[in-house]
């Protein structure tokens, strides 16, 4: 019943859009009363791990609700995993897992019962649901605690169980809303590693909505940035970040004053405090070896040297037309 295959080509109950991206929106507009939450959005979300970014109120949660078939669009069409969301919303939800941002659980159940119940609600037969529940709870790291009542769980455990209930029915697509909410640094690392593992090795497409850009940078390969109900930018993270220019991050230790003077004497422009990470502008075609030479000659050690690459924050800010 369980399979190790990650190849999913045997889907005969799907339209032939399966070969396209898992999520396709065409001219989708969604309104909340008079508020235009999504305006004429057209976007294709590729398979893999995709980050969904945007300031508060940009339309991220509206987009997720609409894709789950919970919010009918005023216009446009949406296809998730080959299904038309308007025509077959339950078929979509049967193949999609959702991990909510806020604490959510079914009262009065222990972890295993809760996750098995969610499996049954998703259409699994009772015995299969129970078995999957055990497996998935081990997978998210709650194996030891699976007979405990969910209400006694710590913040990190609550996050994990939300992930477990989203995975129990083996979805093809997973929506994660702030998955590391409230977790301490160790928990965050573990959760991000889990998330990354799911996306890369288990062939499950991930849409991760978060305000923590380093999380998104770690776990995702693509991003979609929403702003005021429209797509501000989208694409592979690497491409959006672009290539590095001739700026280097540099930190030295030692006779710092002497080194700073040497930099100036060499005519190299630099920003930042000496002793901390600075940004140094190198002329075209000048290899960084010069910086090592300057350091060696003037009593300093190079402790950190790296071509400066724009961060996802810069991409985000640029997309919103903001000054960071």
């Amino acid at each position, binding site marked *: *019943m369980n399979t190790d*295959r990650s190849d999913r080509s045997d889907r005969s109950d799907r339209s032939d859009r399966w070969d396209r991206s898992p999520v396709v929106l065409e001219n989708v507009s969604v309104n909340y009363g008079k508020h235009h939450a999504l305006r004429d959005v057209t976007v294709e979300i590729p398979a893999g791990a995709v980050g969904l970014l945007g300031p508060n109120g940009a339309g991220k949660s509206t987009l997720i609700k609409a894709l789950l078939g919970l919010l009918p669009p005023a216009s446009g069409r949406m296809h998730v995993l080959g299904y038309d969301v308007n025509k077959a919303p339950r078929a979509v939800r049967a193949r999609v897992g959702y991990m909510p941002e806020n604490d*959510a659980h079914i009262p009065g159940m222990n972890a295993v019962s809760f996750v098995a119940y969610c499996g049954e609600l998703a*259409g*699994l037969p009772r015995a299969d649901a129970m078995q999957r529940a055990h497996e998935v709870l081990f997978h998210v790291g709650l194996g030891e605690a699976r007979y405990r009542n969910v209400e006694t769980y710590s913040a990190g455990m609550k996050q994990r169980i939300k992930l477990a209930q989203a995975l129990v029915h083996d979805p093809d697509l997973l929506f994660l809303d702030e998955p590391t909410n409230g977790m301490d640094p160790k928990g965050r690392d573990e959760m991000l590693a889990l998330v990354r593992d799911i996306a890369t090795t288990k062939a499950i497409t991930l849409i991760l909505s978060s305000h923590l850009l380093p999380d998104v940078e770690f776990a995702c390969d693509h991003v979609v940035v929403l702003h005021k109900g429209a797509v501000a930018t989208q694409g592979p993270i690497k491409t959006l970040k672009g290539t590095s220019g001739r700026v280097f991050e540099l930190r030295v230790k030692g006779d710092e004053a002497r080194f700073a003077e040497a930099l100036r004497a060499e005519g190299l422009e630099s920003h930042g405090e000496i002793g901390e990470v600075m940004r140094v502008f190198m002329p075209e075609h000048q290899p960084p070896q010069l910086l090592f030479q300057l350091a060696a000659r003037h009593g300093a050690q190079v402790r950190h040297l790296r071509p400066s690459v724009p961060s996802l924050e810069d991409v985000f800010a640029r997309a919103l037309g903001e000054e960071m």
Partner: protein
Amino acid sequence: MPIHDQGYRHYAGERALRRRAWWVIARAGIMERLRERRFLGLLLFSWSLFLMRAVQLYLGTTIAQASFLAPTEETFHQFLNQQRIFVFFITIYAGAGLIANDRQSNALQIYLSKPITRHEYIAGKLLTLAAFLVAVTWLPAMLLLLLQVLFSGGVEFVSGHPRLIPAITLASFLQVSLAVMTMVALSSLSRSRRFVSMLYAGIVFFGAALDGVLRISTGNPAWALVSPQNTLAVVTDAVFGNASPSAVPVSVALVALGVLLGISIFILERRVRAVEVVG
């Protein structure tokens, strides 16, 4: 392969295309209540009247000197009326938290992101409470009828009162529906089970009290419509052929009940909404 993959595995088993969610929800709700000893005690206690009636039936049908204890249609009518107190307590115990607890723990976000409709969710909740209420109204009443047949050794009583079975069924159905619809609707209004209990109890008692006071002071039986319980009683009386001529006409009572049901449905439609799902 000697070493098996310990990690996450995909699922290639069956996925139900038939909609069963309402049953899954109802079953979970029923099992959750049955695990509580206090509730089991309450259910058992709700059958105490049944036991007394069973003894009465036995004596009435088998011992000639006790023939005054023999059952009539009224016996069953009275039995159902007397069960009302248990219906009240069970409705509050098992019903107040049905949706309120889910609102409190934000469970609606989980439910509605599964492939179920909100109507299935509501149906599952209604069924949970209905199951218990049927078990203390229709079920014991029918069992009493069965016992009557067994003790008297024949079906004359039943065939002599052809209206009885439909009457028991209809009366139970109305009582259960009214309790279930109003309680589940109230439960959807709040996050606090206690508040819902008080609200329900308030409506029942306040309605009855108001009805009593106004009927005495104005002499007008139409005030029964203020109390859901008493309105229902009017209909039940009619069903058992016992309508009091001074009471409110049955058609009016039915309309009143219909209005109450309509309001409950309206409340449920508004309060259990998908828009609540994603935060």
